């Protein structure tokens, strides 16, 4: 199966299950909107837009993973690190909505499924890993890069298994589930590595030059020591 199946089209999963997932996605996104209000200040609003644009841009670039298998980034982990879990989920959802409306990428009726997999499952997995890993790894650009890499690989695979779950619930054809699960996991490990490399370089660069912009480091940041005070 092609890795682009990450964007589920219309008609792959049946109507009732799609509808259930729309309700689920809307409910979770409502929580995100409510939680994001506190976060989305003057600084974070443009950052959220850039993260969305960046995810959008790299999702347009399908890169070759294996002969015949192309894939693209999901971006959830990158979003989590730079803008936090709530705004991050909203960023990825925005990208998915615009893509399905304007680029016919992913079915309109499958939007609930796609948001659940990529925007909710992917970012949730990414967030939990980032939060965990940053406790162990050094809070330096390098450590953050490593965190981004590991979290990306895992979150992409987790997101791909979301499709397996949905297919099990409402697949319109009868395919062997272990086979789907295995294929999805296999190709998505490779995609995850690509995604991980991009997320790691990006996050490490930002952390090196503008640590103030990295949401994941907010909790750990020391107050800035002004030169004046020292002088």
């Amino acid at each position, binding site marked *: 199966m092609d890795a682009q199946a990450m964007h589920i089209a219309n008609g792959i999963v049946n109507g009732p299950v799609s509808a259930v997932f729309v309700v689920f996605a809307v409910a979770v996104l409502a929580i995100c909107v409510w939680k994001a209000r506190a976060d989305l200040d003057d600084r974070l609003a443009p950052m959220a837009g850039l993260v969305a644009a960046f995810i959008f841009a790299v999702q347009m670039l399908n890169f070759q993973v294996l002969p015949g298998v192309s894939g693209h980034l999901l971006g959830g982990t990158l979003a989590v690190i730079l803008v936090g879990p709530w705004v991050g989920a909203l960023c990825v959802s925005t990208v998915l909505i615009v893509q399905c409306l304007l680029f016919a990428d992913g079915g309109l009726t499958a939007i609930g499924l796609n948001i659940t997999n990529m925007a909710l499952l992917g970012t949730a997995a990414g967030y939990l890993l980032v939060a965990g890993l940053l406790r162990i790894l050094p809070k330096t650009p390098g450590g953050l890069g490593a965190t981004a890499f590991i979290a990306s690989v895992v979150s992409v695979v987790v997101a791909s298994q979301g499709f397996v779950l949905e297919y099990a619930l409402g697949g319109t054809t009868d395919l062997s589930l272990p086979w789907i699960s295995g294929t999805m996991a296999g190709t998505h490990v490779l995609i995850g590595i690509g995604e991980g490399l991009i997320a790691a370089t990006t996050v490490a660069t930002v952390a090196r*030059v*503008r*640590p*103030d912009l990295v949401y994941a480091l907010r909790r750990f940041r020391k107050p*800035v*020591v*002004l*030169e*004046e005070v020292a002088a």
Partner: protein
Amino acid sequence: MIDVATPALNVSRLHYAYPDGRAALRGVDLTIAPGERVALLGPNGAGKTTLVLHLNGILHGGGGTVEVSGLPVTPGDRPAIAEIRRRVGIVFQDPDDQLFMPTVAEDVAFGPANSGVRGAELDARVDEALAAVGMSDHRDHVPHHLSFGQRRRVAVATVLAMRPEILVLDEPSSNLDPASRRELAEILESLPVTLLMVTHDLPYALELCPRSVILDTGRIAADGETAALLSDRELMRGHRLELPFGFDPAAAAASRADRS
């Protein structure tokens, strides 16, 4: 310089360091009376742009205060900030930072539209501002498909259209052709506003601004009459300022006297 009225701008003990820790302002004090025209001079990297970005609360948080016509610039206070941004118009040093709408006309309309101007009045403002900078023919073009100098002119128009009380220009004349530079000077001279102009073009400063302030390494190094500052060789040399090749202050003074 007259302290009877509330000053148009009052900056006091302003400090600022960029996120990477580099200090750009180290205690700036500056008071400008309503209607005054002041040139802000100083070497590259002195902190001029950084100071300008404090005047409407874009940068803040390093210590010290800024007041616009008596109103303190407090970043948290949204209505006050909105009011201040209506009063202070800033032309940025890089026109690419200023232009973002899909067409020139929409870009010029953006500011007035945000302050509630609509319909025919909005159109009139846009036309007037574009005519002032000689860009009426380009109203439907995409801003970033213009030449650099044309973008600079549109950038000036976007701010003129807002009719600010205090006009702050960061290197407005750079990349303008000589005639546009003179035309801009004429426009600026005719506007009944308080003016603060950052420039490296000393003759231009002398032409437009009776008073000048020199900023260096984040501190005010001198403040006085432009003609006096420009003739103080010692001071000028100390701050990487020098009159250009072929510029004759005497000739300038004479031609200035001629005109006025």
